[in-house]
Every structure is written in C-alpha cells, then in structure tokens.
C-alpha cells in the first residue's frame, strides 16, 4: 500500500516526540537509579564494615581465623559485596575472600583510625569498587575493608534503561500502528480523490504536499481548467474556429472533445468553401450515421454531381445536333448550286418547265417557311438553355447559403451532446467523492475530539498525581519534625548519659543509635522530598507537553474544518458546473433548430433542381421539333428533285422561267446561308453551355 503523505507527517512528529520522551526518561531513570544504588551500596558497605568491625573484636582477640573467615563469608552472600578482608594491627591481612589471590591494589589502601572511610578503587582484572574501611577498636585491633561492586550498579542501570526503552518502544509501536490505521483511514479516500483530481488537472510538482494540499491545488487547477474550457466553448459558439486547443493530458476528455469538434467544423467549412468554388471532387466521410452534417454534405455532393453530369450530356447532344444541322445546310447549298448549273445547262428546256418552276417556286416558299420554323425552334431552345443557366446560378447561390448556414452550426454536433453528458456524469462523480471526503473529515474531527478527551483525562490524572505527591510532602514534613525532635531527645539523652557516667554508657549507645536513626530518617525524608519534587516537576512538564499536544489537536481540527469547507466549495462548484453543462445541452437543442433551417434550404435546392429538369425536358421537345423540321426539309428536296426531272422534258419552258429561277435560287441560297449561320450560332451556344458545365469537376482527373 502507498504510504500516505499525511500519515508520514504525523508519524514523523510522533516518532520525534516519542524518541525524545523515551530517551530522556530512560536516561533520567538510569541516572536516578545509579545515584540511588551508589548511595545504597555506600550505606550498605558502611553498615557491613561497621558491623564486622564491631562484632569481630572478640574473635580477633581469640585469634580464631576460621571463625573470622566464616563471619566475613556470610557477608559475601549479600548482593553487591565483592570482597571483604580484615587487616590486623600490624597491617597483615588475616582473613580475606579474594580468588585466586590478593590483588596488589589492596596493599595501597589504609584505613583511618577515627572514622569509616569510603573511596573508589580500581582493581586490575576485577573492575571498579566502592571501598569502605572501618576501624576495629579505633584501629587498635585493625581494620575491616569491604568492596562493593560498581559493575553491578552499572549493569542494573543498563538493564533498567534498556527495559524501559523496550517498554516505551513497544508502546510506541502500538501507538504508531494505531496512528497509521487512523491516518490511513482518513487519507485513503483523500489520496484517492487527490489522485483523481491530479489526473484531471495536473498540478505543478512544486505544489505537492500532503493529500489535502494536493486536493486543494488540484481542485483549483480543475476550476481554472473548466473556466478555460468555458472560454473555448464560448469562442466556438461565436463561430471562431481560429483557436488552437491543446489537450492537457490523455485524461483531458473535454479538451480532446473541443479539439475534435473544432477540427471537424473546420473540415466541413473547407468542404463547403470548395463546393462554392465548384470543386465537386471531394469525398465527405460522415463520422457515423448520426453525423447529420456529414451525411447532408455527402448527399448534397452526390446530388450536385449527378445534376452537373446530366446537364453536361445534354449540352453535348445539343452540340452534336448543331453540327449535324450545319452539315445539312452545307449539303443544301451544294444541292442549290447543282440545281443552278442544271438550270443553266437546260436553259433550252426552260420554257417547257414553266409549270414545274412555278411548282418549285411554291415548294421553295414552303422550304423558306420550314426554315423559319427551325429558327423559331432554335430560339425556343436558347430560351430553355438560358433558363438552365439561371437555375444553375440559383443553385450555386443556394449552395453558398447552405455553407453559411453550416458555418453557423457550431453547436449542432452529436459529440457535443455526448461530451456534455460525459461531463455531467463526471460532475456527479465529483460530488459523490466530495461527499465521501466530507464524511471522512467528520470522522477525523470525531477522532480528534476523542484524542482531546483522552489528553484531558491524562492531564487530570497527572494533576491528581501532583496532589498526591503534595500530600506525601506534607506527611514527610511531619516525619521530618518527628526526626528532628527525636534527634533533640537523643541529644538530651546523651547529655544525661554523660552525666550518669559509667552507668550511663549503655544508655549513651542507645541514644547514639536513636540519633543515628533520626538522622537516617531525616536523610531519607530529604531524599523522598527530592524525589517527589522531581515527580512534581516531571508531571508539570508532562502537563505542558500534553497541553502542547492539545494545541496540535486543535490546529488539526481547524485544518480539517478548512479542508471540509474546501470540499463544500468543490461540491457547489461541481453543482454549478452541472448547471452549466445543462445549459450546454439546451444550447445544443437550439442548434438542432438551426439544422432544421438548413434542411429547408436544401429542400429549396431540390425544388430548383426539379425546375432544371423541367427546363431540360422542354429543351428535348425543342430538339425533336428541329429534327422534325429537318425531315420536312429533306422531303421537300426530294420533291424538288422530282420536279426538276419533269422540267428536263419541257426545256423551252425552262429558259423562259430561267431568270425567275435564278433569282429564286439566289434567294434560297441566301436562305441556306442564313440557316447555316443560325446553325453555327447554335453550335457556339451549345459550346458555351458545355464550357459552362465543364466548370463543375466531377472526378479527380
């Protein structure tokens, strides 16, 4: 499991406090123990030396070494006693307990006649000792020496310090585990939340701290990010596609969505622009079936392409027809020329052909009328073509209108709807997580309260302890008084004993003992008082430490409350964002209406195209009329041919009518030229139409 930063912080403080407490108390108690044990060993050693000195007088005088040895051996069983030996008046050691032999250092020690002396002695290979020397019969019968082992004191001190440290370490371990569990419980949802927030809005590494700090920073970053995105959305809604959106991270769904959205709209605008320029070669691939715009564009382009190619084929046909007409007109001219030469050749038979010529003249009139019919048909065709051109113009205008309408359609995209729903869901989750965080916070606050309660009860206990020690102090005062009085009484008794002389000697010993006892009591009382004072000092210190701890707890509560407030703000922000998202959804619905308008425009386009169709049908009709007229012309020519054959029989008649024929022919040749001119004009017109249609590119090549 990843260790929480919050826990690390708490643990570090706890370790520090515990470490200081453990080491100071252990060192203090070790030092205290050493002091007391040293004192105890001194008094113990003194008591032993004195008791041997007092009790062994008789044995010494009896010169019984083994009894003396048995006496000192008994004291070897007392803890702390390392060696005992007795030196006689000549300075010889007459009994001792050294193994394997008497160390050299012992010979340097000399006792004092009138008092018990205490010194420190280091013996090579044995260690350090408190050496006590007590005179026997004021040194007349020798000295008793007792060695108390300092090593034992040191070992006891060490074991006390070590066991105390162990105890404190165990307590510490339990507390640390408790603190860990508590902190973990608190920080797990926090760290989860902060990790989530960090993913959504990456924060500066310099801003890293504990979970709450991260969360705060992340939420701030999230707000900034949302505001940034709102600006982006606004600009898109204004139709501004110039902005470049760079997603913050892979998790930045909104960023990605906006980027995609602008990219898509830009793409569509480009397609529309190209369409406006007449480029129908591009393929639009809708993102999905729901991609209404894409599908609309695709359909539109397909329709336009079909229309243009239809018109183009029509124009081609017209051109062909015109060329045919032209050829026919030329043939007509040639035929007329042939007729003229034949007429000249057969001028003799002209007179015979008078009647036929009149017939020819009549037929020629009919031809002239037919030609007029052709020209009117052609005029009709021109009109139709003009209509087509107009329709095409309108079509392109409509397309431009559609492009403009499309440009306004920034919101009408399914992805926006999807993204809006996504963000809605995210805000819901945020709200939920925040609520979880709030519950955890409340738990923390409760835990803190419990700690505060425990601390106050500890303070109470320590104050009780202080009261008790003060009570003990007052009792000690009483004891001290009694000891003083006893000492005074003993002094009195000593004086009385001195007055009694020889008889009072026994009493004097008793008095001395009492005095001694009183003094020891006084000494002990003083020591106890010191200890109690130390206890009082320590408990006061403990109270201070606990109060500081209390402050820490208060601050902790404050921080937690701040965090709670931050969470509240996050919740409200999330709810605000939620409403914003709802507004976006509404906007999208409005945009749907815009799409409807576009649809209407498209419908108009379709209508126009129907009109074009109609016009084209009329054109077809015109063309068939042309064909019909030309058929009639051909029939007339055949009639002319036949009439000419009949004319050859009556050459005389022909020469008469020759001049008239010549003028007629020149008239018909003029007419034929006019017809050729009209056909040529038709051909140019058809060419122009084809060129016009060529502007629409249908395929890439």
């Amino acid at each position, binding site marked *: 499991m990843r260790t929480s930063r919050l826990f690390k912080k708490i643990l570090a403080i706890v370790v520090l406090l515990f470490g200081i407490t453990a080491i100071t108390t252990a060192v203090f108690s070790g030092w205290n123990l050493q002091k007391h044990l040293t004192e105890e060993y001194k008094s113990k050693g003194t008591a032993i030396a004195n008791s041997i000195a007092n009790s062994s007088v008789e044995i010494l005088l*009896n010169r*019984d*070494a*083994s*009894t*003396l*040895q*048995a006496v000192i*051996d*008994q004291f070897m*069983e007392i803890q702390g006693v390392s060696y005992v030996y007795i030196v006689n008046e000549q300075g010889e050691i007459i*009994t*001792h*307990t*050294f*193994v*394997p*032999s*008497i160390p050299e250092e012992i010979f340097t020690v000399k006792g004092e006649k009138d008092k018990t002396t205490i010194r420190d002695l280091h013996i090579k290979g044995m260690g350090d000792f408190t050496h006590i020397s007590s005179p026997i019969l004021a040194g007349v019968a020798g000295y008793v020496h007792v060695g108390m082992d300092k090593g034992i004191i040191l070992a006891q001190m060490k074991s006390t310090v070590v066991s105390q440290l162990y105890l404190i370490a165990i307590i510490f371990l339990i507390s640390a585990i408790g603190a860990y569990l508590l902190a973990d419980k608190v920080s797990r949802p926090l760290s989860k939340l902060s990790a989530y927030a960090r993913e959504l809005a990456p924060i500066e590494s310099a801003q890293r701290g504990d979970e709450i700090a991260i969360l705060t920073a992340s939420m701030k970053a999230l707000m900034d990010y949302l505001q940034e995105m709102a600006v982006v959305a606004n600009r898109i809604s204004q139709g501004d596609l110039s902005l470049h959106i760079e997603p913050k991270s892979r998790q930045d769904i909104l960023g990605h969505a906006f980027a995609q959205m602008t990219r898509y709209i830009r793409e569509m605008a480009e397609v529309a622009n190209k369409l406006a320029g007449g480029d129908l070669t591009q393929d639009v691939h809708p993102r999905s079936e729901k991609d209404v715009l894409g599908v609309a564009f695709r359909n539109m382009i397909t329709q336009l392409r079909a229309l243009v190619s239809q018109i183009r084929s029509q124009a081609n046909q017209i051109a062909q027809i015109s060329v045919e007409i032209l050829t026919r007109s030329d043939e007509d001219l040639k035929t007329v020329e042939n007729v003229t030469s034949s007429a000249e050749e057969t001028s003799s038979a002209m007179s015979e052909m008078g009647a036929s010529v009149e017939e020819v003249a009549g037929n020629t009139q009919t031809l002239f009328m037919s030609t007029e019919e052709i020209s009117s048909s052609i005029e009709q065709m021109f009109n139709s073509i003009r209509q087509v051109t107009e329709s095409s113009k309108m079509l392109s205008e409509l397309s431009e209108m559609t492009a403009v309408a499309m440009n306004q359609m920034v919101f009408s995209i399914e992805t926006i709807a999807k993204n809006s729903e996504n963000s809605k869901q995210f805000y819901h989750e945020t709200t939920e997580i925040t609520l979880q965080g709030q519950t955890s916070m409340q738990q923390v606050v409760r835990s803190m309260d419990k700690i505060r309660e425990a601390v106050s009860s500890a303070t109470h206990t320590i104050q009780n302890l202080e009261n008790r020690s003060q009570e003990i102090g007052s009792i000690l005062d009483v004891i001290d008084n009694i000891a003083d009085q006893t000492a005074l009484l003993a002094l009195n008794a000593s004086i009385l004993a001195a007055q009694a002389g020889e008889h009072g000697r026994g009493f004097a010993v008793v008095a001395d003992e009492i005095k001694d006892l009183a003094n020891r009591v006084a000494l002990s009382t003083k020591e106890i008082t010191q200890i109690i004072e130390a206890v009082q000092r320590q408990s006061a210190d403990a109270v201070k430490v606990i109060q500081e701890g209390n402050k820490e707890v208060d601050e902790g509560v404050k921080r937690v409350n701040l965090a709670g407030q931050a969470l509240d703000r996050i919740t409200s922000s999330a709810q605000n964002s939620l409403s914003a998202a709802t507004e976006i959804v509404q906007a999208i619905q409005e945009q749907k209406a815009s799409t409807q308008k576009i649809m209407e425009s498209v419908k108009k386009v379709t209508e126009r195209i129907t009109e074009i169709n109609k016009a084209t049908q009329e054109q077809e009709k015109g063309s068939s009329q042309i064909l019909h007229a030309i058929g009639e012309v051909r029939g007339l020519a055949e009639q002319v041919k036949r009439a000419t054959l009949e004319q050859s029989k009556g050459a005389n008649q022909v020469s008469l009518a020759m001049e008239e024929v010549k003028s007629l022919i020149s008239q018909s040749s003029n007419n034929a030229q006019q017809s050729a001119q009209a056909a040529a004009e038709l051909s140019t017109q058809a060419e122009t139409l084809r060129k016009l249609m060529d502007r629409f590119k249908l395929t890439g090549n």
Partner: protein
Amino acid sequence: MKYLLYWLFFLIYFYSEGVYADDIVIGTSAAFRGPSRGLGIELYRGSMAYIQHINQEGGINGRKILMKAYNDGYNPVPAIENTIKLVEEDKVLLLFDYVGTPTVTRVLPLLKRYRNEFVYLFFPFTGAQPHRQPPYDEFVFNLRASYRQETEGLVDNFVKAGRKRIAIFYQVDAYGRSGWDGVKRALAKFGLKIVGEATYRRGAKYSEDFKQQVEILRKVNPDAIISVGAYAACAGFIRDARDAGWDVPIANVSFVGSENLLNLLLETGKATGRDYTVNLINSQVVPSYEETSLPAVKEYRELMDRYNPMPPKELMEEEYKPLRYSFVSFEGFLNAKLLVEILKRMGSKPERARIKEIVESIENLDIGINTPVSFGPHKHQGLDLIYYTTVRNGLFVPITDWPGREK
C-alpha cells in the same frame, strides 16, 4: 475379657511409642551431592557399616540405631536448616558425622542456642579450630586430630627436610582459613612466613582451570605447597601444576578425601600418560586401612564388604561409584564404633542431658587401632595422631623419607 482389654492397651501403648520410642535416632547433615559428595557419602558408608552390624546383632539394649541424613551440599545455610529440622522435628538424640568446616562453623551458634536441650555434635569431619576452642568447644566432641596438628606436622617435616619456603593453596572459606592459620602458626615457630598464597572458591569442579593459581604460586618459587581444600579442586590444582612441568611437593590435609583425589589423578594420568602422583603427600588422622594387623581395620574391611551400605537414594542424585575402602569411610567406621560405645554406656534410656557426663568419663577406651581414646571435661578430642602417606604404584603408603631440597 479383662485380660484382653489389658492386652489391647498394651498394644496401643507399644504402637504409639512405636518405632520411634524404640529406635535410637541420630542425625547428620553432610554433602551427598555436589563436588564434595565423595566425603559425605564415604563417611556415611563407613559409619553405617558398623551401625548396620550393631543393628543386625540386636541393637543397643534391644534398640536399633536409626540415622536421619540430610544433604547440605557443603554449604552453610542448608547445614543450619538441616540442623534445626533434626533437632526440632526429628528430635534426634545427638548430631553425628557432619562434614566440613564452613558448615560446622556456622552450626556452632545453633548448638549454643540449644544448650538447654543438650544438643551435642559428635565427631564432625573437620579439623578446624572453632569447635575445638571456646566458646563452642563444650558442644562438640571430636575424634580426629585438628588441622593445626596436621599442618604443624607437615610444616615440621618440610622444614626438617630443608624446604623452608612454603606456599599455600587453599579454599577461601573457614576451612581453608583454618589450614592457612595452622601453616602460618607452624611457620612462625621457625621464624618463617608463608611465601605465597593462592585461593579458590568452594564448590570448584575438577574440570575447572587452576592454571592461574599455579602461575601465582610458581612466581614465588616455593619449596613446598600445602594444599587445604576439597578433592576436586586440589586434584585440579595438582593436574595443572604437573601439566606445567612443575613437580614441587604438594601436601594435602586429611579432609581432602585421599582416594577421591587419587582416583581423579590416576584417571587423568591414564588419559595423558603422565604420572600426577609424584611428590604427592597426604596427611591422615586415622591409620591406613591397609594395616590389617589392626583389629579395627580387619573388622572395617569385613563389615564394608558384607554390607557395602549406601546413603538413601533420595539424597543422591548424581551417579557415584563408591570406594571399596577409604580413609574417609574408615574414619566414619571409627566414629560409629566410638558412638556405639557411648550409647551402650547410656543404658536403656538414653537422655541428652547425660551425654556430656558420660562421654567426658571415657578413659583409655580401645577402639581397635592400638591407640586408646580418652575424653575429659576439657578434652573433647579423642585422638591426636597424624599419619603421613604418599603414593606408590597408585596406592597410599606410609611415607618413609620426606623429599629433600634438590637444589
């Protein structure tokens, strides 16, 4: 009917007085466990050989002797506790065959405490001074000679042989100090002093290292060493001295337990191939059990072979291989012999109050060692004999010529 009732009363009376009323109960506290157990066990065995024999013969005035025994492991505090138990619970007639100076020295004040109940200690296995001089000599009867006599004899003989630089190796307690004191006093007669001393603590085992003590004594270059200790430590000291190539004469006092000492040295000798018994002298306070010309020796050997007694199993935890004969068990045998004579003299109803009077009246009593035993109001020690032995071919033999100074 009436006779039947009398008979019943008689039976009840007989039973209630029972075994205890009929037996003469004596008590002992000695080392039956620990490094010095050989002394306690062998002393007990010697005494019991004779007591069993007497019990077998029908007891004393028809009463059998019952010996209550407790282990003190050669330590003073258990010895005191055992004594209190023997006096207050077992209500013994007298105390007998105690072993050791540190134990007996500490029991003495207890005897003084029980002075009004006339509790006497008979023939403790120690030659120390405290129970041979006031204020405790009146509560103890000894058979054996004292350490002072033993050490004096050793010093006299060494000095005579030209060995004047005498060092001492001793157990640092009342026993060792007693020997130390004896050597010191004996040397003072010649204007000499102990040239060096090394100690060991009571309870040391044979397996322990005594090289330090050997080093300390070798430094002062003595002519002879008098060793006052128990067999385990003394044997260890001799082993380490000989292993160091030092063949200075080493003399042990009777308490050491000569056969136990010898067995340890012979065993180690067998393993290393070295002879550890060179220049080894032991002083004894009873004649050698090899002197079969003595009636007591003859009887001792016969009874030891016949009964081969052992202390109660509950007292002995460790494996112990008893010695067939030994100076210690022979001393125990002689102790028992003298005790039986005293008990006989006390008549059919032995009372504590009469003990002192009866013992002090013994004069020139023959216990079968060709030396009469006498006691008196100021003479609470039966024998003053010291015998000096050395080892030849793994056996203790009387010393004929003391090793002179070779240098």
